[in-house]
């Protein structure tokens, strides 16, 4: 196992099969803990309801957290960055071409000066 799958990266190494072995061991331990738990519930009684307080269950569509609500805090924190970056993606073909020509010109100057 060591010989066939240890990836040497110059300064370190990594063996995916050993990692898999570790994952399997962790999974077995998790399963053992899980199997110690309560075995079942009675369907049709209050045990199967989502809220023990007896509140009514909301509709399925309302329970799901939609994509637009995720990472709101992250986007709010980095507002300054995003307010500058996003408007650059104007969707205008002229801007696309100008960026390309500009990068070409910049590279030309840098390469010719350094040569």
């Amino acid at each position, binding site marked *: 196992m060591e010989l*066939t*799958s*240890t*990836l*040497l*990266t*110059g*300064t*370190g190494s*990594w063996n*995916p*099969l050993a*990692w*898999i072995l570790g*994952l399997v061991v962790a999974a077995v331990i998790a399963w053992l803990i899980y199997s110690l738990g309560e075995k079942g519930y009675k369907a049709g009684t209050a045990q199967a309801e989502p809220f023990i307080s007896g509140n009514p269950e909301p*509709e*399925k*569509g309302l*329970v*799901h*957290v*939609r*994509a*637009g609500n*995720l*990472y709101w805090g*992250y*986007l709010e924190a*980095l507002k300054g*960055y*995003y307010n500058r*970056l*996003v408007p*650059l*993606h104007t*969707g205008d*073909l002229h*801007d*696309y*071409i100008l*960026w*390309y020509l500009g*990068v*070409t010109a910049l*590279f*030309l100057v*840098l*390469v*010719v000066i*350094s*040569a």
Partner: protein
Amino acid sequence: MIPAFIVENSPALMVIVPLVAAFITPFIGRISHALRSLWVGGAMAVTSAITLILALDVYATGTRLYVFGASAASMALPPDSGGIPIRIIFAVDPMSALMLVITAISGFAIILYSLASERSYSGLESYYTLYLLMITGILGMVSTGDVFNFFVFLEILSLASAGLIAYRIDGGVAVEAALKYFVLSTIGALAILVAIGIYYGEYNALNMAMIAARMQFSLLDQVALVLIIAALAMKCGAVPMHFWTPDAYSMAPSSITALLVVASQASLYGLFRTVFTLYNLSLNAVTVGWLIIILGVLSMVVGVTMAIPQKNVKRLMAYHAVSQTGYMLLGVGVGLAVLGNQSLLDAFGYMAMEGGLFHIINHAMYKGLLFLTAGAIFLRIGTYNLNRMGGLGHSMKWTMVFFVIGALAIAGIPPFNGFASKLMIYESVFIFNPVLAVIAMVVSILTLASFVKVFHSIFMGPRLPEYAEVKEAPLPMLFGMGILAVVVILFGLFPTIVVESLITPAAHALVNQGAYISAILGGA
């Protein structure tokens, strides 16, 4: 076992088979649709088989030459030409072979997927014709040894890709995406043609080995270098020339987007081939290396940060494609920046390049897989809008499994293949410049965060009433995705075998310019 005729002529056959099959496809389509499916599937299977035969042969016996129109396939220099290779040459070295393997696997998996995903659309004869032309273009680009021939295949690829991006007109929006892609790629291709003209005027040769052998790095060569680097970096979607990428990737049919990823990497191949084989040590390795590194870092950071707030799942994945291209540019750029210094090259330069090249093949597999899962979801629920998705894990279990495999691989979670190549990049780039390695790791974390969001919003949550009737994707699509998923897992479990047999020869073939020249010009 394999007839010698096929092995001998495989470089020509792998381009001719899809090219001829492409133009026969519309006629077969008139007979029956089932026959056409059989025909294009068979043509792609044959092409992939020939390509893999050629790649294996290159890995076993070294660089393969194929000279069109010569009496013997390996005769690059006609006896009466005065030492100038005048014919069009295909030169397949281990770096080309790596790209051939990528194209063969992706091309076959994607056509299987297309047979099911496109079944209900009209205009399929042009779809499959253009698909096979794209394959022709990619295979030709990565195996040619002639700069003008490279331009011709690049244009075949651009024309076919633009046609396919616009294929589902979608109220004109897909055409807008194709228009932006095609105007930019036409201007880029003309810049490359000017560079080719400069080489011809200066060295009287179009053959890459001949130009490399005569390279002076005069002012004109510097201009040609910049024209090619900028054009090909634009075509592989490096920031700040990436604006066409999300437009085109999100509007093309998903199967085509997966192939566009491979097409972008063919441009990346052209970039590396130009820098390493045409110029190599004659250019200012530190400047050009750092330019490529900066492009790579910008692509990684801007790509991933733009991906996070996206609402359209394919646009999000397209920004991730930009971000992942950055890793490849970073790895190979570090290798280029230390090109002149043998001890640094041995210490970490080769490892960085191998990481970058390994990431190319890994990226083609897992990103292709992710785009295919997006297409399967679109086929069943008819939207790409993440805000309208949810709970699909209940009904599309296999698609979810494939998505998870792709998402973990792109985020660099062990034991999937993305981790292996990213680890190689982190550890080698850390010695070169720790800041770059830290940026690369942060980008990886943001990638994971972004895919957690996608996974949650598509598959998690209760079964939504509007998607109560949704079924699993059809079997050929699952099969196409399955091929890529298996490759992702195998590459992750046995990275050493892949690195030693595919990647290391490719990295050494790129760096060793002398071997490339002498393979073609015969020790001149």
